[in-house]
């Protein structure tokens, strides 16, 4: 005789206030025991209408809005926006400014990946130790930003055609010191985490996404490279002076949580290489075009422009439309964080509750950018 235990699925709201949602994000999850059978992401808790606000600000003022989209990748946001403005207005950037913003954005990429890796481990349940180690390294990078522009998180460092302030004398030795210290720290991270059996068995083979699935869903960045797709805009469509520097694109073929984590750790090393080369190639000169060429109140000709960069989270694009006035007529952000969440349901269904936030964290999203 068989006895049937009557079970029923249970629906739980996780978020918007939850320790692991990386901000204010809500998921309505239906569980069968511990197994996830349905997920519905609910966005918008951090929506500030940045795109609408941009329509009432001048082109330079919009920079501050971009800082606040992905607040762990401000420099990269600045860079994407500036590329779009330069394309729209036909500004020829000053070489030293471009080198400086490449250095700044690569430093920011390291900082952003450190946050992603640290919080992924935190989602796995570590008691904060690896997170604090990564945060310590990020702190040093933020100190460098403070030297560059006076701000740590919301930098607003870039201007059309370059940057607003040259790096001070003491920036270069300080940066070299940080870059010297980083590789051993990343090795430490590798020792503590990559070779850890618990992390390996928790992340290996969980939430596998195939390249075809991800390309269909417009997912870009480290997630795509973790599945073996060699698509990095810095390499495939070099903006700024990325065609003059040499770097590898770390690829992993598994496409699971571990691969996504691994690719990020390796990309930090590549970013260090890029910064070293930039430091060699940078030359004295003006940091932005003359004021007569590029006035503060920029009035680009009527038209539209789309510029995209390889953000630490994926392809970050700005689509700007100008009507010839001092502010954008339309400013659209192609936010990698939002679009990378397209496959959230596919990633989570069939996994366990414990892996849910690990998979979610491995996407590396930032609610400021998802909701804008």
């Amino acid at each position, binding site marked *: 005789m068989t006895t049937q235990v009557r079970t029923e699925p249970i629906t739980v709201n996780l978020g918007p206030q939850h320790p692991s949602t990386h901000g204010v994000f809500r998921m309505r999850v239906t569980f069968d025991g511990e197994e996830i059978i349905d997920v519905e992401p609910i966005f918008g808790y951090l929506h500030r209408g940045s795109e609408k606000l941009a329509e009432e600000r001048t082109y330079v003022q919009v920079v501050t809005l971009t800082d606040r989209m992905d607040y762990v990748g401000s420099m990269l946001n600045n860079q994407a926006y500036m590329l779009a403005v330069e394309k729209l207005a036909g500004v020829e950037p000053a070489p030293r400014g471009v080198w400086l913003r490449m250095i700044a954005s690569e430093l920011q990429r390291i900082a952003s990946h450190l946050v992603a890796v640290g919080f992924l481990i935190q989602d796995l349940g570590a008691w904060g130790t690896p997170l604090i180690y990564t945060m310590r390294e990020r702190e040093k990078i933020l100190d460098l930003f403070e030297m560059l522009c006076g701000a740590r998180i919301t930098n607003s460092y870039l201007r059309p055609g370059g940057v607003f302030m040259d790096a001070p004398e003491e920036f270069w030795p300080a940066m070299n010191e940080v870059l010297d210290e980083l590789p051993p720290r990343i090795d430490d991270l590798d020792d503590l985490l990559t070779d850890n059996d618990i992390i390996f068995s928790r992340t290996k083979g969980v939430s596998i996404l195939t390249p075809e699935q991800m*390309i269909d869903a417009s997912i870009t960045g480290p997630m795509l490279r973790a599945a073996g797709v060699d698509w990095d805009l810095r390499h495939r469509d070099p903006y700024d002076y990325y065609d003059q520097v040499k770097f590898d694109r770390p690829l992993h073929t598994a496409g699971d949580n571990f691969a996504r984590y691994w690719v990020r750790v390796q990309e930090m090393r590549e970013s260090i290489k890029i910064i070293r080369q930039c430091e060699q190639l940078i030359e004295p000169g003006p940091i932005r075009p003359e004021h007569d060429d590029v006035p503060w109140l920029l009035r680009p000709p009527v038209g*539209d422009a789309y510029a995209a960069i390889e953000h630490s989270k994926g392809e970050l694009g700005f689509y700007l439309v100008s009507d010839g006035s001092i502010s954008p007529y*339309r400013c659209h952000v192609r936010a990698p964080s939002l679009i990378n969440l*397209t496959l959230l349901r596919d990633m989570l269904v069939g996994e366990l509750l414990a892996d849910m936030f690990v998979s979610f964290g491995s996407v590396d999203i930032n609610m400021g950018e998802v909701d804008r």
Partner: protein
Amino acid sequence: MSKAWDGAKLAEAIHKSIPDVVVDANGTDIWIEPDSVLEVMRLLRDDAEFQFQLLSSVTAVDYISYFEIVYHLTSLTRNATAVIKSKTGFGRDEARIPSVVDIWRGADLQEREVWDLMGIIFEGHPNHKRIMLWEGFPGHPLRKDLATYEQSIVPEAERRVPSGVANEVEEGQG
């Protein structure tokens, strides 16, 4: 370095397979008929001549007299890009366009965002709900005619909320 399709050449290439859908071409951009979006996009993704596997971005611009939907496409295999635009909603009445979610799943959240903020209806979207704002928010904030909150309030009867959606979201509090 990625290369972009020249608008005129792209229009010509599309014309060979699907005649009379391209309205205009300029620079890298082409404008197509809104009704033919599904057909053209399927061609652009599947045809060996185009191979646009990745939909970079979907957005919309409010040009007062009409709305323009902008698709940025990327081909990974050919490292090429193209910009497809489509004008709809002349006279600011019902602006609608077929949804491309069936072709690229990446359009899912982006089209919801465009509906939410710009008020373009994507026909055939599997989950046509607001994404950033709450169900029942009056108006669509990125439209140029949205002035103030009070002015934008739409009478209950005229709100375009899919039936039952608003209540459904609030269920299941855990």
